[in-house]
């Protein structure tokens, strides 16, 4: 994949906001002193009257976002995933989730690929926390194309949503005309021996893993589970019944995120052997993103090894 174009999903988010801002006068964007990092600065320049700077106050930002949304705005409010899902959790739960406010919680810098900033800034808990909130849509796009397409769906649909975006450049997987539906998984590769269900930046690794497995005679189905909630149960059950084994892959804790969500379906509807690739119930550390992914076991090679363990 040497020549593959690489774009960070946060950059795609920034482009989306500027484009959507032109079409949607009720779109308001918020940031908590991170507009450059969150890529909300493009919107800020284009539509300063619809940009609300919250300062270093994530809790206040999400409560204000609820107030703006309940006044008829569509609000995209951003900070680092750690300070969104972690610090502002209860505000999101009570003021956005419980009210059903039309706030799109667009959290950048999710997972370990935050890199050098280290453990205080690397969240592996956000998908789990957010999917616990009734009515919350939870999305973790794999690349720039799906980020923009899914964000389009998300702002078109009334209600709270959490969109996890990344800091680092990641390969563009999809053709730019590809269409996406929230809650409908994408099968990227057919296979009958095992299914790799991946989300976010691990989708590209899942595809690379499937290539490598094919060379060893294992045909792996690869699914991009961009929507963690509502989960595409049908795709999971089909994968379980047709391929007999499932490996999940996420840049998130193996506790409660994609792996947990898939396991809940599998165990209740079609029990098959499962294994999970992700952060193993430990904190991260500073380092280059690629080195961290390798150290903490979230690479294509790790997926290959785990697939072989269940086959």
């Amino acid at each position, binding site marked *: 994949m040497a020549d593959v174009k690489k774009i960070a999903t946060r950059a795609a988010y920034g482009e989306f906001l500027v484009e959507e801002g032109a079409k949607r006068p009720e779109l*308001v964007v918020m940031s908590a002193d991170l507009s450059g990092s969150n890529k909300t600065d493009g919107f800020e320049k284009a539509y300063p*009257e*619809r940009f*609300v700077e*919250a*300062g270093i*106050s994530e*809790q*206040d930002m999400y*409560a*204000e*976002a*609820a*107030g*703006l*949304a*309940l*006044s*008829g*705005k569509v609000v995209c409010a951003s900070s680092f995933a750690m300070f969104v899902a972690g610090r502002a959790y*209860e*505000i999101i739960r*009570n*003021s956005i989730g*419980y*009210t*059903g406010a039309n706030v799109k919680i667009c959290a950048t810098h999710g997972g370990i690929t935050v890199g050098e900033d280290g453990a205080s800034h690397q969240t592996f808990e956000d998908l789990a926390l957010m999917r616990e909130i009734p009515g919350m849509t939870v999305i973790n796009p794999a690349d720039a194309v799906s980020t923009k397409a899914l964000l389009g769906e998300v702002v078109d649909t009334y209600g709270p949503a959490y969109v996890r975006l990344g800091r680092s450049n990641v390969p563009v997987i999809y053709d730019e005309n590809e269409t996406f539906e929230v809650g409908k998984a994408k099968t990227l590769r057919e296979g009958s021996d095992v299914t790799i269900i991946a989300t976010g930046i691990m989708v590209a690794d899942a595809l690379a893993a499937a290539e490598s497995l094919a060379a060893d005679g294992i045909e792996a189905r690869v699914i991009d589970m961009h929507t963690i909630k509502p989960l595409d149960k049908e795709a999971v059950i089909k994968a379980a019944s047709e391929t007999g084994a499932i490996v999940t892959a996420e840049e998130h804790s193996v506790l409660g995120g994609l792996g947990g969500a898939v396991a809940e379906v599998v165990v209740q509807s079609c029990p098959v052997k499962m294994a999970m690739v992700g952060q193993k119930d430990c904190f991260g550390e500073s380092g280059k993103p690629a080195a961290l992914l390798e150290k903490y076991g979230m690479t294509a090679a790790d997926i290959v090894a785990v697939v072989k363990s269940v086959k």
Partner: protein
Amino acid sequence: MKERNYQELKETARKVRMNALRAIHQANSGHPGGSFSVTDILVALYFDEMNIDPKNPKMEDRDKLVLSKGHAVPALYAVLGERGYFDVEEMMTLRQVGSHFQGHPNMNKCPGIEMSTGSLGQGFSVAVGMAIANKMDKKDGFVYAVTGDGELQEGIIWEAALSAANHKLDNFIAIVDWNGLQIDGNVDDVKKVTPIDEKFASFGFNTIMADGHDFESLFSAIDEAKANKGTGKPTVIVAKTHKGQGVSFMTDQAGWHGKAPNDEQFEAAMKELGGEK
């Protein structure tokens, strides 16, 4: 000066306290102390100051009130019922399974409730967001946030206070129901919040002191707060109140924060609230 019928307002407040207490008594659960301290503030707003339409609760350009101290919602339900948002008898299902009248306000279940609150501090910040939206849309409505004084111990209040000043929200009026008591005792013993007005002043607010049980004082304060529109500064009204106001054995007693009266206490309280009528 606007003509006001103070006798009628007092009568309304008396009914509100009685209905709030009836609801709490039937539920055998709820918060009489803070409901009674905030009653007169809510009556002054909903029966005089606020631009609202009970027949059209979602009216454009209306004034909005967020009861950030959500536990005092029996008083708000009773005010909304008295004002005609719904039949006040409906609130006698308070805190029962299936009721629209939740223990803390739910905006999706009860007309006239602008925001679901209960987790302290958040309502204040949500109200700031509403005031920002009104400014963006050039809407005339004021946004009121009613908080307790113990609630000021929540950090989000001060984050939002910075925002309100920073965004020059002269359409935002915070009212502190300063009853001086919280569950564990005197607010200033538990975690000192006074001087409340000076704190808000240093955050960039216009500040007004009021007697939260005197309609003349409340109207003077609210009128002044509204007149601050154009100053580019938010306003806080620090309204001195008494927890449990209206029932002598509940007055200024922290123990009546979140406790329902037994039958005997209920009868005595209703008798006292019934007064000479």
